[in-house]
């Protein structure tokens, strides 16, 4: 049995990802939902957009076979799976569809998770250390998010960037729990693993190209995973020296020794260095959230669907560090040359479409032709990164290249009433 066609629905989730792949078999359709999350919707889009999307997914897949893929744990990829105490919720709607498989990266495996207040002792596996630092990183994001809400010295753009990144990296406990319980079969995969998704989709070969396990990573990454675990745990709890935040204030370290402000200002001779220290603190926070944001992005599953002569590539938000394991293998590079449809990594950030990957795609062309590479980008501008630093998402130079050399669809082109865009690919 082999599907004749695949329809890909790109939902309007603003800054986030939500793709429904519907494979048309002779007598039925089978579906894979890849990610469902958002951190910020465009103006004019209904507030309950995620519920509308969940209902649409339900209509399309009701009583048909469905699998769910959550590429990684960022909010913009899983928030739609969250359940609320009051019904209805988008997460409940999806859970009610009873997906027969939930596929996630190995870093989500609850067997590796530990309820640790601090870093794990030596002797525990490096994978467990890595998972433990991921959890600590989310706590760091939380600490930074609350500091950003509390302090008043940040410029509006910096505050927006820090809040966005902080929030996107917070742990989504509801969504994580729902993903853990919505299906009887759960898979936690690393690069090179086989997946039961192939049983659901006969006639389709599915390669998992990432994320690499710690053992598959470079030697140096392996050795550092323990130290990183320590660092992130210390970082997560560093501010607890100050006590809890109350009414947007924290108690100082030495309450009996503070210098009073006159008219809200510190003494004149300290002002210059205070402003420098604030700037530096903001810089450090940004640095930290960027690092942890990248690390979490790099836990993304990279999936390559192959059917007959067609190949579809869904890399989540994987960035160069995740990609480098796959790109280091000649056999994988051969497969990547033939990609027909590419879900643009990480909403169009530059680092998520490594040049060495883009250069591989044989089907890119400036002229329109039936075999021309198709690219799908789910994104929203002015949420992530900064134009001045050339880190804005989507990155203009990448968008130009995508637009010139492929048939690009971006969710930014949907109007506020359009819920989705449909792309169809003949697989026969």
């Amino acid at each position: 049995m082999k599907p004749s066609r695949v329809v890909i629905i790109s939902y309007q989730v603003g800054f986030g990802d939500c793709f429904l792949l519907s494979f048309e078999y002779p007598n039925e359709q089978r579906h894979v939902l890849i990610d469902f999350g958002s951190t910020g919707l465009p103006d004019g889009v209904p507030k309950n957009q995620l519920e509308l999307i969940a209902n649409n997914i339900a209509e399309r897949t009701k009583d048909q076979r469905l699998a769910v893929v959550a590429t990684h744990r960022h909010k913009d990829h899983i928030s739609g799976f969250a359940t609320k105490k009051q019904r209805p919720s988008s997460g409940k709607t999806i859970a009610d569809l009873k997906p027969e498989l939930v596929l996630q990266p190995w870093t989500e495996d609850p067997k590796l998770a530990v309820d640790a207040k601090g870093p794990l002792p030596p002797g525990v596996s490096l994978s467990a250390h890595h998972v433990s630092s991921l959890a600590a990183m989310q706590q760091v994001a939380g600490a930074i998010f609350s500091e950003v809400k509390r302090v008043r010295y940040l410029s509006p753009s910096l505050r927006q960037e820090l809040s966005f990144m902080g929030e996107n990296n917070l742990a989504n406990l509801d969504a994580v729990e729902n993903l853990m319980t919505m299906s009887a079969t759960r898979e936690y995969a690393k690069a090179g693993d086989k997946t039961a998704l192939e049983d659901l989709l006969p006639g389709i070969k599915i390669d998992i190209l990432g994320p690499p396990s710690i053992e598959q990573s470079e030697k140096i990454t392996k050795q550092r995973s323990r130290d990183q675990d320590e660092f992130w745990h210390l970082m997560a709890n560093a501010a607890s020296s100050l006590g809890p935040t109350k009414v947007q204030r924290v108690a100082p370290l030495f309450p009996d020794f503070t210098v009073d402000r006159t008219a809200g200002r510190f003494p004149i001779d300290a002002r210059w260095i205070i402003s420098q220290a604030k700037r530096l603190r903001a810089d450090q926070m940004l640095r930290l959230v960027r690092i942890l944001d990248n690390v979490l992005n790099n836990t993304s599953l990279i999936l390559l669907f192959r059917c007959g002569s067609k190949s579809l590539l869904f890399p989540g938000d994987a960035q160069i560090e995740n990609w480098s394991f796959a790109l280091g293998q000649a056999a994988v590079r051969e497969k990547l040359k033939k990609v027909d449809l590419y879900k643009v990594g990480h909403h169009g950030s530059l680092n998520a479409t490594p040049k060495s990957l883009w250069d591989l795609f044989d089907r890119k062309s400036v002229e329109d032709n039936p075999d021309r590479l198709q690219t799908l980008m789910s994104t929203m501008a002015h949420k992530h990164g900064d134009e001045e630093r050339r880190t804005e998402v989507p990155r203009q130079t990448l968008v130009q290249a995508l637009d010139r050399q492929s048939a690009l669809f971006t969710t930014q082109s949907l109007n506020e009433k359009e819920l989705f865009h449909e792309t169809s690919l003949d697989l026969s």
Partner: protein
Amino acid sequence: MRNVKGTRHSLRSSRQLSIIAQDPSVKVDDRIVRASIDVPAEELLPGPRGYRVVVVDYDATANALYQPASLSSGLEGEYTDPFQEAPDETLLSDPRFHAQNVYAIAMRILARFEFALGRRVQWGCEGHQLNILPHAFAEPNAFYSRDDRSLFFGYFESFPDKQDNTHTVFSCLSHDVIAHETTHAILDGLRSRYLEPSSPDQGAFHEGLADVVALLSIFALPDVVGAALDGMAGGALIDQALLERDTLANSVLFRLADEMGQEMSGVRGCALRHSIKLPPGKNYMDDPEYQEVHKRGELLVAAMLRSFLDIWISRLNRIGTIVDGQKDRSLVIEEGARAADHLMTMAIRAIDYCPPIDLSFSDYLSALLTVDREVVPDDRYGYRGALLANFKDFGIFPSKRAAADGTWLRCDDEMIYSRTHFDSMLRDNEEVFRFVWENRRTLKIGDIGYIEVQSVRPSVRIAPDGFVLRETIAEYVQVLTVTAGELRQDFNVDVPDGIRFWRPLRLLGGGTLIFDEYGQLKYQIANHLLKDRGDKKRQGDRLAYLWKQGLLDTKNDRAGNFSALHLARSGVQERAG
């Protein structure tokens, strides 16, 4: 001439202040080990704010300013030490002591550099005064920022112990962390180009030297050394068993930032505990794991510290036992102090004998050997032998441009001196540039690129015959900007394939010129721009390294650079670009 106190005799030049000798976790008889150290005497504003160090206790995380420490004036009375008798709880809970602690340690390290070099030493940042923020933010981190003219020290909460208790760890109470960061600021003043991305050695040198200075400076504190050796606050004798090599190497004296280390073994601290125990005899220099600058810095520390241990032990062997295998405790400590002092002076002076750009460990070893030869021509104390053997154990050999004994080649070329003036050559960058320009052929600096004399400084020391010796150290730097294509075609340099031909690349060359007391060129210690095949290889290797690390063409955000480096010690790496 009478001074302000109405006497013709000079004012006191130093005062004593209490510090926490290592960090709050190092205790004897359940009391934090402290030391009373000499710092230059000066009239301070509250802070303390002095002529080189200004402490401002601002906490960005809490947005709070803590009260400044006020240290007494020596003009209106005597210099006093407000925390001399204070209990441990006060030391931990009074931010004014923390301020005093960072002030005193930073001033002491600065004074140690000035003592070794015989001149005033500048910070790497603008101005004369370095700001120190002892509680800058809640973060397991501490760093030097050139742009902010500051050292920032973080604090954080420890991991819970067995009883589930935590406590606050202050990096501003760790002698080693303060000494380390202060050394960064001083080294940046001596060699500003060492913060630029170059070879892994150059980045590692900043870290390694900072650790070496932090560790060796402890040996000048006899009470601390004694307490670390036998855990006692005093005594006349010490058991020989405590002076075995392994026991010494395991002692707290060779562990950097013990408390920080226990809390964050990967971030700080453990580095040293680890480095003296790095098994020698492996080719670390080519090991991919040791390409990372922080890890690589440990090699320098291991080689230096093992050399020190060798010298100390050989000196100890000459001290006889008095009763039952016990030795004179104060002699043991004094021998350690002497060896550490000599090695520290060498380590600092050697910086003057290093090329101003693209420093390698081999260059530094040759500089160390040269400095020692100048002072002790016959190596009667075995320092050079110990250094050569221990550096070799970690795969570090003297520079290929050095003489057979590893010291720099002396300059014997005929130079044109008559167009410059002796007196101006002692202090004037313009005059030294004229000298460089007139002699560019003999100095083999070629005729391409832009040349700049960065500094002209005196170096004063006591010669082997007991007389004062004054030499002059000048640094020049050459900069050449060419495209990758030109570099490949015209200069035959191996540029990494990924770099597009149109991309402009900046190459550096440069040298240190050492003039003797007659103003004659004694040494030219240079990494030339593109003089020979060796230079071309160096430039190619540098480009390949920068390209691989993503450091090519990054904005020169130096403050950021340093804080990023310190995060990286934890293995937490930031992607450049």
